[in-house]
Every structure is written in C-alpha cells, then in structure tokens.
C-alpha cells in the first residue's frame, strides 16, 4: 500500500497520460477505421483493394513493430520531425484503425439488404445511403465488439513504455530509479488497469442486452 500512497502523484500522472494517449488515438482510429470500412464496401474495386490491403498488412503486423518503425526507422527518412509521443499516437491509431474497420464492416454486413435497396429506390447516392441509412444502423449493432477493440487499445498504450513515451507502463522504471518496491508497484498498475477496464466491460454487456433486440 505504501508504494501507492508514497507515489500517488506519479501514479496519477502516468495514468493520466495513458488516458490521454487512449482518448486521442481512440478518436483518430474510429474516424480512420470508419473511412476504411466505407472504402472496403465501396462500388469502386480499386478502393476496396486499398482498404483490404491496408487491413491485411496492419492486422498481421505486431503493434511493437509498428512502434519500432515510427520511432526508430521513420526519423531516418527525414520527412517531418515528430516527437515520440506523436509517433506513439500515430502507431496506435493506424494499428487500431485496421481493427475498427473490420468491426464496422461486420456491422454493415448485419444491416438487412432491404435497407440499402430501399435507399436506392428513393434515389439516394452511395455516400448518402451509407452515411444516412446503413452506417447509423451498423454502428448500433457494433457497440459491443467496438468496446472490446477500445479496451484492447487502452491496454495497448502500455507498449509505448519501450519507446520513451511516459504512461502507466513506465511506472516500473520510475519506481526502480527511486529504489522503491517494483513488485507491488506493478501489482498496483495492474489493479489500475482492471479498474479502468471493468466499467467498460460492464457498459459493453449492458449495451449488448439493450441494443441486441433493437432491430
């Protein structure tokens, strides 16, 4: 207990950074992932190919490798200098977007065909149909799996601890530098994550029950 109370400031700062990383990359990956899903169901074969290619590559690459690429390899290309923090945001967002895309696409597949047909009969264009009719319904059915993806993103932020980005994964290093109790420090970090994740799991179950019968 004393590890936590003596370093409360450190713990709060670190978890604050974790939440910040999580929030920004969650928004970015949701936007990018939805766009990718739109590409993957578009009538233009080339766009579908681009979406599929992106998802295949990113889903089969370890997140750590994406991090290594953006932190160690990208600066060698001397394109645009980015800080490690930005690199972490980019890596997390690009990686998670591939999973968001798959979730959204599976949601689109659950929307009955009649919805798209009726939209066409009313004369809506593809983008209108997707944006106003299909996606709103798809996103509803997609809340539980999307929550799982977001939980995974929250946990994945700790990968940044190998790349000089301060967040909850670095509490160990800070404690070790002070000569503090690393073992119990790590247990407290784990408890911190359980506290963050469990409410999300609960929300997920509630939505699953409430929205599963909506259609």
């Amino acid at each position: 207990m004393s590890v936590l109370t003596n370093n409360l400031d450190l713990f709060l700062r670190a978890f604050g950074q974790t939440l910040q990383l999580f929030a920004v990359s969650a928004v970015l990956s949701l936007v990018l992932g939805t766009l990718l899903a739109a590409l993957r169901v578009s009538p233009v074969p080339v766009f579908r190919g681009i979406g599929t290619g992106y998802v295949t590559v990113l889903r089969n690459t370890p997140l750590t490798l994406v991090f290594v690429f953006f932190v160690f390899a990208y600066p060698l290309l001397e394109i645009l200098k980015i800080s490690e923090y930005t690199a972490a945001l980019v890596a997390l967002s690009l990686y998670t977007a591939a999973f968001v895309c798959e979730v959204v696409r599976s949601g689109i597949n659950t929307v009955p065909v009649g919805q798209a047909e009726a939209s066409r009969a009313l004369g809506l264009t593809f983008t209108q149909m997707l944006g106003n009719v299909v996606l709103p319904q798809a996103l509803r059915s997609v809340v539980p799996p999307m929550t799982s993806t977001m939980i995974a993103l929250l946990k994945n932020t700790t990968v940044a601890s190998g790349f000089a980005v301060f967040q909850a994964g670095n509490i160990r290093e800070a404690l070790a530098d002070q000569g503090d109790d690393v073992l119990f420090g790590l247990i407290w970090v784990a408890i911190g994550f359980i506290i963050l994740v469990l409410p999300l799991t609960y929300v997920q179950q509630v939505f699953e029950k409430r929205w599963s019968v909506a259609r």
Partner: protein
Amino acid sequence: MSMVLFDVPGPKARVRHKIMAVVGIAAVLAAIVYVVMRFIVTDQFSSRRLDWINYKQIQLSLVDAIGNTLSAFAVGAVLALAFGAIFAAARLSDHAWVRTPAAVIVEVFRAIPLVIMMFFFYYGLPQAGIKLTAFTAVVVSLMLYNGSVLAEVFRAGINSLPKGQSEAAYALGMRKTQVMTFVLLPQALRAMLPTIISQLVVLLKDTALGFLITYEELLRWGTRIGGDAPNFGRPMISVMIVVAAIYIGLCLLLTWLATYLEKRNRRNKKVIHVDADDIPEMASV
C-alpha cells in the same frame, strides 16, 4: 457479403468508377513513389546499408531469432490452449465454488495489459526471490492472457450449441463428463476452430512484446542489426522491411489455415453452424 449495397453500375456509373479508380491508384502510387524517393534521397538502400545480408554470422542470428519467436509462440500456444480448456471447463462447472474463482481469474487476466504482466514476471518477481528468464516471462504472460481469452472462446462455443444436444445426451443416460467430452466439446471445437486460430495469430504477434523485456526474438534482432551505426550505417529501414515481411508471412500462413478450416467446415454437414452473432466478440487485437 455486403456487395449488394450498390446496383450493377450502368454506363455513366462505370465511367465515374473508372475515373475514381484512376484517381485512387494515382494517390496510392504518389504516396509510394514519395516514400521510395525518400528512401533513395536518404540513401537507405546503399550497398553499405544492405551489406548486413552478406554476413553468415548475421544470417545465422536471424535464423536463431526466428527460432526464438517461433518457440515462444509454440510453447505459449500449447500452454494457452491448456489454460483455456481448464478454465472454460471450470467456468461451465455446476459448482459455484469452482465457477466463481475461475470467472474472476479469467476476467482479471483479460483486463491486465500483457506488457504489465511481462514486466511483473521479469522485473517484479526477482524482488520476491523468484528469478525467471525472459523466455519464461514471455511464455507465462502469453499463457495467462491468451489462455483467458481462449477460455472465453471455448465457453462461448459450448454455450452456442443448441440445447437439444446436451438434453439428448442426458436423455441417453450420459453423465456430465461424458456429455461434455463426447457430445459438446467435439462440436464446439470444430465450430470455434477459426476463432481459436485467429487468437493464435494474436499470440504470435504478441511474442514481439518480448522485445520490451530483452527477449532475443525477431524484433529485438531487427533493432540490434538495424541500429548498428559503426558497421552498416544504421540500416533500420531495410532490416525492418525484412522483419515485417517475416511477421506478416507467418501470420498470413496461420490466417490462411483459419480460412481453409472455415471453408471446410462450411462444406461439412457434421458441423453445427453457429450463428456468428451468438458468439460474443473477442478482442483479438
């Protein structure tokens, strides 16, 4: 498939799609050309920076690194499958004193980030006098995390079977264990095989986290060779392309196996077709 979101294109739409296709290809090509230009301008593919490929020592260490990644994967996968089977059985138990602790353990290990678990086993435990090698720390963490996820997969698979299966088995006079091992498990395993394999892909990718606790796997090898400034002038780009290709190749091989099994399942009449919506989505990220 959702390919019914649009009509068969008419002449005007075809022209429009062609224009968009050209624009799309141009955009992607422009991006690729730009990146390749940067490669050339910053001289990433100079003979000095590609020289590492020629050294026998480095080639052998690459084989070693792949071997380390694969052995962590193999041991982790076997342990995770066993862990998952045991805890799924425990969660399905009729006795609350078995069910509840198993549920708590599974939920807790699913909520803790894998990195924190690896840190705990590698940096935390030595303080309590238990020293684990990096390999053990990686494998144990992979087992606990992926095992918990797999436990949920197994459980969902068994719960998604039609109730008539177990009722009929009980009506035939089978005991609980017999119902489970002879009737439910074989069907559930077949139905869940694609999901199980995609979780194994996640496990394979997660071995790369061993990088963070100095386990000598493929990614660590890559950063070591790629960061070698005195001998090869920091060939990070070329090395990382090789490493990424190996990871993607290995994962695609497993994914391909999953799709193959799924296709074979679809043809097989013995497999009960579980509605995908009945299975709670697993965070396979």
